C-alpha cells in the first residue's frame, strides 16, 4: 500500500512537471508565430499535390489558397524561419510519412548556410515537431555548440527562466494551439517599400559547401525514390543577395540531375511585382499583394509543366478559401 501511495505521488509530480513544461514553453500563438507553422501541418488534410520546403522565402511568398483558387492546386508550405537545408530534408522526410505529393518545391536560398545559425531559429522550426526519428535527426543536425538534445527532450530545462516573463498568451494557449497560417502561408499585409538596399559585398568564396550539396543530393534522391518531381526555386527577394555564382552552381546542379530550376527574380516584370508596394520589409519578403501575384504566376507555371489535378470544388478547400478571403479583407 505504501509503495502504491508513493507511486501515486510520483505520478502527480510527473503530471505537474508536464504542466509546468507546457506553461513555461513558448506558445508561438500571438507572438513569434513562426514557431507554430511546422506543427500546424499535423492537423491538416494530407492530400497535397505540391509541398514547398524552405525558409521564410517560401512561407512569406507563396499562398496555397491563391494557387487553389487560380489553378485548383492543393499545396502546402512546410516552411519555417531560417530553415536550413538539412532541416528542409528532414521535414520533407517527415512529410513523406504522411503523404506523397506529386511535386516538391525547394527554395535554394539555404544552400548558402553550412552551419547552424542560431538556437532561436532552430527552436522555431523544431520545438513543436512531433517526436519521430526525423525530429531526433533534425535536432542532431541543427544544434549549435552550446545546445544539448536534452533541452529539446525536456523543454523546461531551456525555458524555465520564462517563469517571470509569462504573458496572457501563455495561459490562454496552455492547452490549445493557434493556427496562424493558411496552408503554411503567413499573411502580412504591411507595406514597406524598397529604399536603400544593403551594399552587395564581395565574398571570399561563392562555392556552396559540401554539406549543403550532400543534403541537396539527399533531397533529390528522396524525391526520385518516391516518384516526386523536385522543383528548385529561388524566390524573388532582393536581399540577402543571390549572387550570379550561386545561381550558376544551382543551374549546373539542376541540369546534371535533370531537375527544373526557376530563379523567379528573372520573372519579376512578368509577375508584376512592384517593390515599392509589394514588400513588407523593404525587399526581403513579399507582402500579401506581392505573394498573391507570385502565387498566381507560379501556380500557372506548375499547372502547365506538371500533371496536377484541378481540385476546385473540394468542400474543405472551398471553406478554407472563404476563410482566407475573409481574413485578408
Amino acid at each position, binding site marked *: 500500500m*505504501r509503495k502504491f*501511495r*508513493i507511486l501515486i*505521488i*510520483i505520478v*502527480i*509530480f510527473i503530471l*505537474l*512537471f508536464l504542466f*509546468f513544461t507546457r506553461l*513555461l514553453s513558448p506558445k508561438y500563438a500571438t507572438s513569434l508565430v513562426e514557431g507554430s507553422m511546422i506543427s500546424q501541418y499535423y492537423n491538416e488534410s494530407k492530400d497535397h499535390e505540391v509541398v514547398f520546403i524552405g525558409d521564410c522565402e517560401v512561407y512569406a511568398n507563396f499562398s496555397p489558397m491563391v494557387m487553389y483558387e487560380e489553378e485548383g492546386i492543393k499545396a502546402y508550405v512546410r516552411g519555417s524561419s531560417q530553415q536550413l537545408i538539412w532541416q528542409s530534408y528532414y521535414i520533407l522526410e517527415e512529410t513523406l510519412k504522411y503523404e506523397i505529393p506529386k511535386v516538391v518545391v525547394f527554395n535554394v536560398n539555404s544552400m548558402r548556410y553550412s552551419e547552424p545559425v542560431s*538556437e532561436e531559429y532552430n527552436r522555431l522550426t523544431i520545438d513543436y515537431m512531433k517526436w519521430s526519428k526525423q525530429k531526433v535527426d533534425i535536432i542532431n543536425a541543427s544544434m549549435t555548440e*552550446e*545546445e544539448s538534445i536534452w*533541452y529539446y527532450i525536456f523543454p*523546461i*530545462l*531551456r525555458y*524555465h*527562466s520564462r*517563469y*517571470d516573463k509569462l504573458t496572457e498568451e501563455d495561459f490562454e494557449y496552455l492547452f490549445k494551439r493557434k493556427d496562424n497560417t493558411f496552408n503554411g502561408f503567413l499573411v502580412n499585409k504591411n507595406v514597406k517599400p524598397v529604399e536603400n538596399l544593403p551594399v552587395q559585398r564581395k565574398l571570399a568564396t561563392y562555392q556552396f559547401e559540401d554539406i549543403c550539396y550532400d543534403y541537396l543530393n539527399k533531397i533529390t534522391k528522396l524525391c526520385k525514390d518516391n516518384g516526386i518531381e523536385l522543383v528548385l526555386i529561388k524566390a524573388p527577394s532582393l536581399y540577402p543577395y543571390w549572387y550570379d555564382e550561386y545561381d550558376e552552381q544551382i543551374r549546373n546542379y539542376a541540369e546534371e540531375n535533370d531537375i527544373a530550376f526557376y530563379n523567379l527574380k528573372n520573372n519579376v516584370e512578368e509577375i508584376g511585382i512592384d517593390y515599392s508596394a509589394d514588400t513588407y520589409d523593404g525587399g526581403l519578403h513579399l507582402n500579401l499583394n506581392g505573394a498573391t501575384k507570385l502565387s498566381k504566376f507560379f501556380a500557372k507555371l506548375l499547372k502547365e509543366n506538371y500533371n496536377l489535378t484541378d481540385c476546385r470544388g473540394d468542400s474543405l478547400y472551398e471553406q478554407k478559401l472563404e476563410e482566407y478571403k475573409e481574413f485578408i479583407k
Partner: protein
Amino acid sequence: MNVLLLIVSILLYASFGWQSLFYVFFSIITTFFAAKHLQGKYKKAILISTIGINLAILVFMKFIPYTELSILAPLGISYYTLQIISYLVDVYKGKYEPEEKLFNFTLFIMYIPHLFIGPISRYDDMKKQLLAKRKITSNNIFDGLLRISWGLIKKFVIAGRTAIIISTISGNLEYNGAYALLAMIIYSINLYADFSGGIDIVLGVSKMLGIDLVENFNSPYYSESIKEFWRRWHISLSSWLKDYVYIPLGGNRKGALRKNINLLITFTVSGLWHGVNYITWGILNGIFVMFGEKFKTKSKIFNRLVTFIIISFLWAFFIWQDQLTALKMMGSVFTTFNYADLGAQILNLGLSIADWIVLAVFTIILFAFDGNKEKILPKLQNSKLEVKTILIGIMILIVLILGIYGIGFDVNNFIYSKF
C-alpha cells in the same frame, strides 16, 4: 559494491581529465607503501619525505598557476592531499594500523562523492563505513534524495542568483562603496549556499550509498564570534587544521602568547591552502579569532550581526582576488557614499524583480532552516516515506523552474572545487 564504487569513482574522475589520474594514483601508491614503514627505523624520515612529496605536488599545482602544467592540476588535490597527510600522521602516531590492502586505501581517497569539494574525511572513520556490510535501504535513498534536493535548491536557486550579482559588481571596479558592501553581504550568502549546497549533494549521494560523511557546516551564520564561526564553517577543514597544525604547534599548552602565534600560523596555513591570494584573509581571520571573544556582548542578536558583518567583509578577498583591490573595496564602504545610487540601480545588477524576490524568499527559508535545524531534522528523518516523496518532488520542481542553469551556466562550477 565497493569494486563498483571504485570503478565508477575512477571513471567519473577521469571524465574531468584523465591526466589527473596520474597525480592521484602517484599520491595513493607512494602514501600506501610509505605508511607500511611508518613504524620502523626511518619512520620520521619517511613521514617527512612522503608528506613533502605530496605537499610539493600541491604547492606546484596551486602556486604556479599560469603554466601549461597547471591546466593538468588534478581536481580535488587540496582535499585528498589533506586526507593523505592526516592518514600518514595518524599511522605514524600509532592511532591506527596502516591499511593492508591497496584497494581499500584507493577507495578511501578516490571515493568520488567527497573527492571534489570535501568534506575532508578521516581514514579510521571512513574505513569502518566503507568496509562495513552496507545495504541500500529505502530510508537511506529517500533521506539522501531529500538532502540532494535541498542542496540543489541552495546551489541553483540561491547561489545561481547571488553569483550573477557578484559577477556584475566584481566585474566593474567602479562598483564600489554601497555596491561593494552589497557584494560582500551577497557573497556571504553566495558562498554558503554554493559550498554547503554542494556538500549537501555530496552527503546525500553518500547517504544513498549507506555512508555517512562528516558534516561540514552547522548553521555558521548563527555564530556569535569569529572563533565560533570557524567551529561551524567548513568544519572538516577547521578540525583538520586544529589536529594537524594547531595542536602539533603546541596549541594552547604553552602560554597565551604561543597560543596566539599558533592561531595566527594555523589561519595563515588555512589562507595558503585556499591560495596565495588568501593569505591576508587567513591572517585577518586569525586576528579576529585571537581577540574577537573579548568584544562579545550579552545580546546574541548583536553578536551574530557583528560576526556576520565581519565575515562578510573578510569575504572581500574571495570576491576581488587581488588583495589590494579587496582592501580598497572594504575601505570604499566607508568613504564612498553612493547608497542612493545603489537603490536606483538595484535592478541593473543582473536580476529582475522576480529574481530578487525568489532570492529573498529562499534566503529567508535557508536561514530559518539553519536556525531551527535541531527541531526540523528529527521530524524530517522520522516522517513517512510519502511525506519525504512529496518534499523531494516539490524541491525538484522548484529547482527545475526557479533554478539558474542551462545555456551559459557551468553546472560543475562549485566555488570550493577550485580550492
